[in-house]
C-alpha cells in the first residue's frame, strides 16, 4: 500500500511546487509590464491544459477504471478529490459573501456542509464500500430487489445532479467572462471543453486525478489573498485565528456607524422610497400612466433648464424601462420595493444570532437556521456524486479513513470563509464607508460596471453611507485582492481557483449522471448482455449529450439557478437518505416500503418547494398555487418535510407488508461485516 503512493506523492509534490513557480513567474512578468488580460489568459489556459494532460494520460477502456477508478485510490488522495468534487463554485465564490451579508445566519452553510460528513462517515461510506458496486442506484436495486428502486434512484440522481451541474457551468461562464473578457456564451463552451477533456476519455480515473490537481489550485487560490490581508491588518498571517480580534473591531465599528445621523437619514430615505413603490402598486393601473407622465414632465423641465445631459439620459432610461402592462409593472415595482426596503432596514450586528424585533430572539429565524442545517447535512449525505467517491477506495478501512481526509481538506476552505467575510467587512467599514463619493477606490467602479456593486448617494451629501452601498455576494471573494491592494496576479489566481472549483464539481456530477443513465438504465435494465466496449461507448456518448445539454441551459442564464442549487440538497436528501439508512440499519425494510418512501419523500419536497416559492408558473399556465409556509420554514429547507415523510412511509408500508426475503437479509448482513465479502 504505502509503496505505490510514494510516486503519487512525488508527482503531486513537484506539481504543487511547479504551480508556485508559475505564480511567481507571472508576478515578475507583471512587474515588467505584462498586461492583466494576458495574466488572465495564462491562468485560464495553463490550468485547462494541465487538466487536459492528466485527463489524456488517465484514459482507460476498462469498466472498473471508468466507473470507480479501479478501486485503487488511496484514502488521502480520495479525500482531496472528494474535497474538489464537493466544493463547488457556490462554496468558492458565494460562501464568503453570504457570510458577509448575513453574519451568524450564514454559518448554517458552514455547519451543514461539514457536518453532513459525520453522517457519511458513520452511516454510509463503510457500508457502501463493502457493497462495492458502481452507483447508488446499484445499491438500492440490490437491497430492494429489482429495477423499480433502481429507476426511482436514477430519476432522483439525474434531477438533483443536473440542476447542480448547470450552476457549475454557469459559474465557469461568469469567471471566464469577468477575468479574460470572453463573451459569456463562449466562456460557457470553453468551460465545457475543460470539463470534457477530464472526464470523456478516462471517466472516474481521470476525474479523480484531475480533481486532486484542482484541489491544490483552488485551496491555494482561496488562502493566499486572505492570508496577506490578515498579515496587513493584524501582523499575523493566520486569518483563521486572528479574525476573532478583527471581529471585535467590526463590532465596535458597527456600534459607531449604525447610529450616525447620516446613516439613519439614508435608511429613512430608502424606506420612504419603498413606501412610494408600495403606494404605486396599490393604485395600479392608473399609477403606471401617472409615472410615465411624471417622468416626461421631469425630462422637459430639465431640458428647458439646460440641465446636465447625463441626468436627462438617466431619466429617459427610467422611462424606457418602465413596463407596459400593469402585471409587469407590479413585478417590476415589487422588486424595486424589496431592494429599497432592504437598504432601508435596520442593519444587524455580524455576530448576533437570530436577530428579532427590539433585540429579542426571532424564533422563526432560529427554526429556519436549524432546519437549513439539517437539510444541508442530510443532502450532503445523499448526493450521489459524493457517495460514489467512496466506491473508489481499495478497502472499507480506507473508505473510513478517506472520509476523515475529505472533511479535513474541506475544512481548510470552510474555516477560512468566515474570516474572509470579517476581514472584508473590517476593510469596508473602516476605510470605504465615510469616504467621498468622488474618490472611491477603482474596484468599486470596476465591479459596479457589471452590476456586482451598486452605490447611490440617496441623501446627496457626497459621502458614502453604509446604507448606500449594496454588494452582490460573489464580489467579496473576487474583489478581496483589490481591496487589499494586491497585484493583478493574485486576482488571476483567484479566478483560476474559482474555475478549478466549478470544473471539478461539474466533472463529478456529469460522470454521476452519465453513469446512472448508462450503467443503471441502459446496461442493468435494457441490455444486461451488452459488451464492455459497448457499455463504455454508450456511457461516453451520454456524457457528451448531457454536457452539451447542461451548457445549453447554462448559456440561457437561468435567473433562478443559484436558488435551485440549494434545492438539490433537499431533493437528494428526501429521495435517498431514508432508503439508504433504513436499508443498512433495518433489515425489515422491504421493497414496496422503500420505493413508496422514496417517491413520497420526493413528492412532498417538490410540492412544498413549488407552492412556497411560486405563485404562478407561466409556462405551465398555472396560477394562484402559492401557499403560506408551514411554521414559517422557507422553501430551501423543504427537505425537512420530505425526509420525515420518507422515513415514516418506509417504516409504515414495510410493517404492513411481508418481511424481505432471506436473500435480502443475508445481503444486509454481508454489508455490515467486512469479512463476508462476495467474490
Amino acid at each position, binding site marked *: 500500500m504505502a509503496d505505490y503512493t510514494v510516486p503519487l506523492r512525488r508527482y503531486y509534490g513537484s506539481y504543487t511546487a511547479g504551480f508556485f513557480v508559475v505564480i511567481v513567474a507571472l508576478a515578475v512578468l507583471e512587474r515588467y509590464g505584462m498586461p492583466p488580460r494576458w495574466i488572465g489568459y495564462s491562468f485560464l489556459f495553463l490550468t485547462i491544459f494541465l487538466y487536459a494532460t492528466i485527463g489524456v494520460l488517465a484514459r482507460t477502456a476498462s469498466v472498473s477504471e471508468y466507473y470507480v477508478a479501479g478501486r485503487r485510490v488511496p484514502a488521502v488522495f480520495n479525500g482531496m478529490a472528494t474535497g474538489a468534487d464537493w466544493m463547488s463554485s457556490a462554496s468558492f465564490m458565494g460562501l464568503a459573501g453570504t457570510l458577509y451579508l448575513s453574519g451568524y445566519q450564514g454559518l448554517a452553510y*458552514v455547519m451543514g456542509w461539514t457536518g453532513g460528513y*459525520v453522517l457519511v462517515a458513520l452511516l454510509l461510506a463503510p457500508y457502501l464500500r463493502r457493497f462495492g458496486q458502481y452507483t447508488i442506484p446499484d445499491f438500492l436495486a440490490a437491497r430492494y430487489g429489482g429495477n423499480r428502486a433502481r429507476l426511482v434512484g436514477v430519476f432522483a440522481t439525474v434531477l438533483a445532479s443536473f440542476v447542480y451541474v448547470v450552476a457549475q457551468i454557469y459559474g465557469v461562464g461568469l469567471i471566464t467572462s469577468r477575468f479574460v473578457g470572453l463573451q459569456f456564451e463562449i466562456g460557457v463552451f470553453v468551460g465545457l471543453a475543460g470539463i470534457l477533456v477530464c472526464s470523456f476519455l478516462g471517466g472516474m480515473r481521470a476525474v479523480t486525478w484531475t480533481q486532486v490537481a484542482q484541489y491544490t489550485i483552488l485551496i491555494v487560490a482561496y488562502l493566499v489573498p486572505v492570508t496577506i490581508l490578515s498579515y496587513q491588518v493584524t501582523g499575523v498571517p493566520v486569518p483563521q485565528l486572528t479574525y476573532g480580534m478583527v471581529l471585535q473591531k467590526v463590532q465596535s465599528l458597527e456600534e459607531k456607524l449604525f447610529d450616525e445621523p447620516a446613516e439613519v437619514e439614508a435608511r429613512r430615505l430608502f424606506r420612504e422610497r419603498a413606501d412610494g413603490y408600495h403606494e404605486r402598486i396599490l393604485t395600479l393601473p392608473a399609477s403606471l400612466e401617472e409615472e410615465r407622465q411624471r417622468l416626461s414632465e421631469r425630462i422637459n423641465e430639465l431640458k428647458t433648464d439646460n440641465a446636465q445631459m447625463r441626468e436627462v439620459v438617466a431619466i429617459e432610461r427610467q422611462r424606457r424601462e418602465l413596463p407596459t402592462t400593469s402585471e409587469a409593472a407590479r413585478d417590476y415595482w415589487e422588486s424595486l420595493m424589496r431592494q429599497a426596503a432592504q437598504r432601508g432596514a435596520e442593519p444587524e450586528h455580524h455576530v448576533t444570532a437570530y436577530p428579532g424585533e427590539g433585540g429579542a430572539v426571532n424564533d422563526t429565524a*432560529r427554526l429556519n437556521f436549524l432546519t437549513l442545517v439539517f437539510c444541508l447535512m442530510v443532502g450532503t449525505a445523499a448526493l450521489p456524486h459524493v457517495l460514489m467517491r467512496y466506491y473508489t477506495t481499495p478497502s472499507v478501512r480506507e473508505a473510513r479513513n478517506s472520509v476523515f481526509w475529505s472533511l479535513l481538506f474541506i475544512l481548510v476552505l470552510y474555516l477560512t470563509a468566515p474570516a474572509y467575510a470579517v476581514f472584508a467587512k473590517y476593510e469596508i467599514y473602516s476605510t470605504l464607508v465615510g469616504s467621498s463619493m468622488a474618490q472611491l477606490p477603482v474596484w468599486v467602479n470596476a465591479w459596479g460596471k457589471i452590476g456586482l456593486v451598486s452605490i447611490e448617494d440617496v441623501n446627496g451629501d457626497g459621502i458614502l453611507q453604509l446604507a448606500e452601498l449594496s454588494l452582490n455576494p460573489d464580489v467579496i471573494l473576487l474583489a478581496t485582492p483589490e481591496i487589499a491592494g494586491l497585484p493583478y496576479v493574485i486576482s488571476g489566481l483567484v479566478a483560476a481557483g474559482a474555475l478549478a472549483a466549478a470544473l471539478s464539481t461539474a466533472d463529478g456530477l456529469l460522470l454521476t449522471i452519465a453513469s446512472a443513465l448508462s450503467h443503471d438504465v441502459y446496461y442493468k435494465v435494457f441490455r444486461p448482455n451488452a459488451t464492455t466496449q459497448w457499455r463504455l461507448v454508450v456511457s461516453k456518448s451520454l456524457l457528451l449529450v448531457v454536457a452539451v445539454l447542461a451548457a445549453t441551459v447554462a448559456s440561457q442564464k437561468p435567473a433562478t439557478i443559484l436558488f435551485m442549487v440549494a434545492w438539490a440538497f433537499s431533493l437528494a436528501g428526501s429521495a435517498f437518505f431514508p432508503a439508504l439508512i433504513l436499508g443498512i440499519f433495518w433489515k425489515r425494510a422491504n421493497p414496496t416500503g422503500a420505493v413508496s418512501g422514496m417517491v413520497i419523500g420526493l413528492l412532498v419536497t417538490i410540492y412544498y418547494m413549488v407552492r412556497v416559492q411560486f405563485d404562478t408558473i407561466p409556462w405551465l399556465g398555472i396560477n394562484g398555487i402559492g401557499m403560506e409556509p408551514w411554521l414559517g420554514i422557507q422553501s430551501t429547507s423543504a427537505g425537512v418535510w420530505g425526509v420525515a415523510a420518507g422515513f415514516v412511509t418506509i417504516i409504515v408500508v414495510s410493517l404492513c407488508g411481508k418481511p424481505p426475503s432471506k436473500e435480502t437479509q443475508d445481503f444486509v448482513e454481508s454489508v455490515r461485516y467486512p*469479512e463476508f465479502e462476495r467474490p
Partner: protein
Amino acid sequence: MRLAQKHRDYWLRNLKLTAALLTIWFVVTFVVSYFARDLGAFTVLGFPLGFYMGAQGAPLIYVLIIWWYARYMNHLDREYGVSEVDGDE
C-alpha cells in the same frame, strides 16, 4: 448465512459507538445552535462562543468524531478478525 456470536457482538459495539458519536454530533449541531444567543456571553479567542461554535468549534468536532470512528472501527475489525486484506480487489 449463519452468524456467530462474535459477529453479533461486533455489530452491537459498532451500533453503540455510532449512537454515542451521533449524540455528540446532535448536541454540537442543534442544541448548541439553539442556544447560540445565550452562549454569546462567553468569549473564545475574541469570538462570542455561539459564533465560534458555528464557525470553527462544530466543524472541528466533526473531524474529531470521524477520526475517532475510523480509528476505533479499524481496531475493532482487527480484534474480531473481520478485517479485510488490504487491496482485496
